[in-house]
């Protein structure tokens, strides 16, 4: 499974949606994922790819990690996975 598909699967599970309902343009707010849902998603992503996501819930916009929509999250994860390789 590609990084993109896996991230969408994790986000969809958190949002209790089918992966097909999660688009690249969706924001977490669109998907009904709140702050606890976000940290739980990041945990699941870290577990799935064995990476550390530099995200601080106190300063979500200051983090190196862009969570503005699904596409930006996937791009961030792809970079972390390739940096690790």
């Amino acid at each position, binding site marked *: 499974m590609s990084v993109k598909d896996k991230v969408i699967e994790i986000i969809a599970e958190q949002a*209790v949606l089918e992966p097909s309902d999660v688009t690249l343009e969706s924001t977490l707010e669109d998907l009904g994922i709140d702050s*606890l*849902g976000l*940290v*739980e998603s*990041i*945990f699941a992503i*870290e*577990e799935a790819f064995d990476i*550390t996501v530099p995200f601080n819930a106190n300063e979500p916009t200051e983090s190196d990690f862009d969570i503005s929509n699904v596409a930006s999250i996937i791009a961030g994860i792809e970079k972390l996975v390739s940096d690790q390789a």
Partner: protein
Amino acid sequence: MKRVVITGAGTINALGHNVADTLSSMREGKCGIGALDFRDVDRLAIKIGGQVHGFEAEGLFNRQQMALYDRFTQFALVAAREAVAQSGLTFSGELAAKSGVVMGTSGGGMQTLDENYRTVYEDGKNRVHPFVVPKLMNNAAASHVSMEFNLKGPSFTVATACASSNHAMSQAFQMVRSGMAPVMVTGGSESMLCFGGVKAWEGLRVMSKDGCRPFSANRNGMVQGEGAGMFVFEEYEHAKARGADILAEVAGFAMSSDASDIVMPSKQGAARAIAGALQDAGINREDVGYINAHGTGTAANDKTECSAVADVFGPHADNLMISSTKSMHGHLIGGTGAVELLACIMAVKDGVIAPTINYEEADPECALDVVPNQAREAKVDVALSNAFAFGGLNAVLALRAV
């Protein structure tokens, strides 16, 4: 001062998953203590406990709730649902704004602690689930009860080891009696039956390997249990005006501290709490028909408790009944006083006295009527519930028939 009555009760413990099953087990003198079943139990010296079996969170809570609720929170919610449903109350507007929840627990989210220590120490992982803190904090159960029932008034958690529930219910009682809150949801919850929880108790060498036999000369220690008890404490006129069923009146309470030893009980501290509760309730000692004992089944507690009762009640000590239901459900630590209050309600409301089971051999140092092995029918107007915690912190509640 307002009068305070109990209009709802709920529980889950080793004797039953609700009040009716629990009280019928107590009447029949059933033992809920058996072989412990959890990971690494083979590495324990103590392998028995009053574990809750057949409890499935699925169906009771949604997926997000299950991810957020430690077992002690799940127990608290199940018991609170039963209690609030029985009361018939729904909380909105002014009633919601003023009513709250005070709970007792000793260990809080011990299952969560145990699992996640295992993750980082034993499995060597460097990442834990983000909900570890909101699951394990001692106030988690009280907070979730507050959220589920829209209780927006004074809400917090009390931790006084084995007296936590009694201290919590005392606080709730005071709030209703003073007029501060019309209704308080209160009680306690504990779930310490996991490897780390039992291992820690093992270290103290106060646990029995083979059974809980309070007041019996051959007793050899306490046995842990788990579960929750929750109640709705309501101002009497408020309950009467809406035609609520009243289970019992909370007549008074007292708390004391031994100020002497971190583990050894004190007769004086216990006696001051018992006498204080009678005084607070304005009850003559001759009117007390039943005491639900702290009765842990340790050598020290049971003789000290009997001696304190003898001191407070004088000749009447030989007329009253005193039993330890821990012989059946085990010691629920921070939740124990809440489950034991059910036995006091049964005494004053139904006229049934729960027995001390596993009683095998008389102990001259516990020479009271401990209702050995078989429940008894008796008319009781006033019942006391004792709790004497490690750390020397004592709390006694007095219930009266309505």
